[in-house]
Structures are given as structure tokens and as C-alpha cells.
């Protein structure tokens, strides 16, 4: 009886926490739109954050994307060759990478690297009173710290995704050449023949939402972190989990919408 009651309590507490998390995110998103649209605009800081987020993620994204493309082709090749579809490898890899693997993996990597980074940075700024110091210095910390970071992630995740797609395709080309001798021109032609607007557009559009949710979650958790340095660590941890789940949910919703529109 006691165990059942305890389980009920834990369950209801989890439900409460889930909805309060969602409400907190919704409030933060609403504030982003209300404050982000009002001048003064922090263009310089947005550019600074784009640099921080974009350039500093390039190495990680490059390595991961290259390996993914390579492994995808190496794993798929035996089965495709067995069914006599070896010549479809470039088309298969390009559609897989551009539609799903590139955007999703880039977003998940960025949720881990950028989301936790933003959360830890804002959390430690809060704990050490830097956010208060900013307010005292005539700066709206929400605009300067939060709006700029959400904008930067929303802009840079699509750019990183396009870059990751290209690197991944190079990885796939390298993978194709390990066992076969594939001509580069042939490979590029087959890749572009296979890709259509309906493959590229939905995949590209969803990356803006991925970037938005990564920035939003990271900022919300960091800006609202409590309980000192322990809270900063927790905020960084939770922001990664929530951002990753958010990215996957958005991916599912976009896939459903794309399917309903007849693009799949």
C-alpha cells in the first residue's frame, strides 16, 4: 500500500514537473518574441554568438559528419550489392543524409555541445551575479544574453547542417571508394539527380526549429538556474536532455507534416 502510494506520488510529481517545465519554456519563448522584436537590437552580440556557436562547433561537426557518411555507405553496401542495387548507393546515401541523418545528428550534437554550454554559461553568470551587474550597467540581460543566443542557434544550426551534409557526402564518397572505384563526377551527378526540392526544403526548414529549441532550452535552464554551482551543473545536464527530446519531437512532427503534404 505504502509502495503504491509512493509510486503515485513520484508519478504525480513527475507530471507536475513536466508541465511546469513546459510552462516555463512557453513563458520564455513568449518573452523572446516580445522582447526580441523591440529595439535596441544587439546585432554585434548576435554576430559574436554566431561565431562562438558556429565556428567553434565546426571541428566536432566535421568529424562526426564524415564518419557518419562513411559508415552509412560501408554498412549499406553489402546488402545493396546483394540485391544488385550497388549503383544506387550515392542516391541512397544522399537522400538519407540530406533528409534525416544530417539535420538530426547535427542538432543532437549541438544540443549536447551548444545547449549545455549556453546553460552552464548563463547559470554561472547568474550565480556569480554577472547578470545583475549587467542590469546595473544599463543592459537588459534578457535581450543581451538570451535573445542573442536563441537567434544565433536558430541561424547557425541550419548553416552547420548544410555544412555537415556536405562533409557527410564526402565521407560517403570515401566509403564508396574503399571497396569500389567510384568516379567523383559520377558520384556527384548521381547525388544531385537523386535529390529533389521536396527532400531539401523540409529538411532545411526544420533545422531552424532545431536551433530555436536548442537555444531556448539552454537559455531557459541557465537563466533560471538556482542553488549555486550545483544548480549550474544540473541545469546544463537537464538542458541537454530536454533539448534532445525536443529535437526528436520536432523531427517527428515535421516528418508527419511532410508526409501529409505528400512529399514523402
Amino acid at each position, binding site marked *: 500500500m505504502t509502495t503504491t502510494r509512493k509510486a503515485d506520488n513520484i508519478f504525480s510529481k513527475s507530471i507536475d514537473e513536466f508541465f511546469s517545465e513546459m510552462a516555463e519554456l512557453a513563458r520564455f519563448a513568449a518573452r523572446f518574441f516580445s522582447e526580441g522584436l523591440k529595439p535596441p537590437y544587439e546585432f554585434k552580440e548576435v554576430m559574436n554568438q554566431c561565431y562562438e556557436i558556429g565556428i567553434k562547433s565546426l571541428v566536432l561537426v566535421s568529424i562526426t559528419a564524415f564518419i557518419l557518411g562513411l559508415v552509412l555507405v560501408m554498412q549499406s553496401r553489402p546488402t545493396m550489392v546483394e540485391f544488385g542495387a550497388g549503383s544506387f548507393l550515392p542516391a541512397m546515401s544522399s537522400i538519407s543524409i540530406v533528409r534525416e541523418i544530417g539535420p538530426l545528428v547535427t542538432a543532437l550534437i549541438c544540443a549536447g555541445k551548444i545547449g549545455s554550454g549556453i546553460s552552464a*554559461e548563463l547559470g*554561472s*553568470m547568474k550565480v*556569480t*551575479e*554577472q547578470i*545583475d*551587474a*549587467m*542590469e*546595473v*550597467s*544599463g*543592459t*537588459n540581460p534578457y535581450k543581451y544574453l538570451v535573445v542573442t543566443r536563441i537567434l544565433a542557434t536558430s541561424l547557425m544550426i541550419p548553416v552547420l547542417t548544410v555544412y555537415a551534409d556536405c562533409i557527410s557526402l564526402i565521407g560517403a564518397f570515401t566509403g564508396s571508394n574503399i571497396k569500389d572505384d567510384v568516379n567523383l563526377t559520377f558520384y556527384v551527378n548521381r547525388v544531385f539527380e537523386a535529390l529533389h526540392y521536396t527532400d531539401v526544403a523540409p529538411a532545411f526548414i526544420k533545422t531552424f526549429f532545431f536551433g530555436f529549441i536548442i537555444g531556448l532550452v539552454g537559455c531557459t535552464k541557465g537563466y533560471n538556474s538556482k542553488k549555486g554551482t550545483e544548480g549550474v551543473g544540473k541545469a546544463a545536464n537537464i538542458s541537454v536532455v530536454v533539448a534532445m527530446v525536443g529535437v526528436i519531437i520536432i523531427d517527428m512532427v515535421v516528418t508527419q507534416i511532410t508526409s501529409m503534404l505528400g512529399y514523402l
Partner: protein
Amino acid sequence: MATEINSANSPSVTGNVPVIEIQHLKKAFGDNVVLSDFNLTINKGENMVVMGKSGIGKTILIKCIIGLVKPDGGLLKVFGQDISKLNHRELDDMRTRIGFVFQSSALYDSMTVRQNLEFPLRRHRRKKITGTLEELVREALHNVGLENTIDLMPSELSGGMRKRIGIARSLILKPELVLYDEPTTGLDPITSEEITRLIMDLQEKYKTTAIIITHDTAMAREAANRIVFLWKGIAYKEGTYDELIHDQDPEIKHFFTR
């Protein structure tokens, strides 16, 4: 117990012009009542030291004064303006006249010392400043004796240096009122003494009014024109250092003889 303060007799106080007027100030966080009926008046040129046990609400008090924390009730006038009635722009304008030295120094980790000092100058866009940013930054660093740290990151500074840079940043806009939140906490006695001396010298140079929150009785003895002892949400006792140190009230006695 809480009495109105008149510091006209204090030698360094330039007049009886109130800079801060606090009446019946209230602030609570849930059930935790921090300020219940706080009254205080601070005149121009005065160095008011606020003492009291940890967690009693001293930092909340100065955060209310600068508008970082909104009081639940009461009247709080700074430079004759009711803080609760100021809009965002007016509050920003008023903040250009106030310097705030944070307990943790609150230097921006991602910026160099130069950028930290330039930040308030760049952000308070409506504040008229005389001189170039470079000149003002150099002057601020000269004031605290740390000219050679200009291109260092905060992580490369010692605790005492960080405090000094924090003080330099808070004074860079030449404020009329400076709020110090435990400026000597976490420092060794010699560095604490240096910081106390620095605060006194800068106050003399710029003729500022100051509220200093501290547990450091040596600093209170050196810096205070008057001391207010915060207890149970009110200004429990006020007086000079000598008056408080000889006070027979058990709370005061316990605090000063600990």
C-alpha cells in the same frame, strides 16, 4: 528602536541633503520576511555601514535601492525619486548615478579587464562622459593601482585584484552613490585593509555617498560615519562605531564581541 538618522554632525558629511530615504520598507520571499519595517535616511557625503548576521537581508536592502529587487511595500526614494514609480528608462538613468560593487566582484568572465571596464560606458548610452574610453579605463585602473592588468582575463586575477577591478568598474561612471556588498569578504586581513583604504581614498577623491555592507568590524571602524544594525527586518540600532561597540543590547554586544 529604529530611529531616524541625522548625521549632520558627522565631519565628512557635506550637508543634510538626503540621498536615500527609506520608510517602512517591506520585502518577503514566501514566508521568509527579510525586511519588515525598515527605515533609514542617508545624507549626501555619508558613509553608512550596514551590519548584521548573514542572511538577514543586507544585500536585499541594497538590491532594492538599485532596483534589482522590487520591494513589497514602503517608500524608497533615491535622489528624491521613488524607485517604484520609475520606468525602465528612468531607472537606467538613475543607475548611472549609482555604483554597485558586488560581493563576488561579478566581473564578466568572457571579457578582458578593459572590456569589463568599458561595458558600463558603452551600455549607458545616454550618460555624458568626458574623455575617451581608453582614458577613462586607464584612469579607473590607475585609481585602483592595477594599470598592468588591462588586457588580462578575470580568471588571471587574484581575489583582491578582482575586488579592485570591481570597484574600478563601479566608479568608472563617476557615480554619486556607491553601494558596496561585502567588499572585504574572503580576503586576508592585509588585503582587506588595503581595500578599506582604497574605498576611503576614492570616496575622498570623488566625494561619493556610500552604503557599505560588511561583517568586517575593522572596516566598519575605519569607514563608517554611522552604522546601522539590521535585525529582524528592521534598522535595530544605529550609531557611530564607538556607540555600538559599547552598546549593552545583547544582540549588538554578541555581534561586536564575537
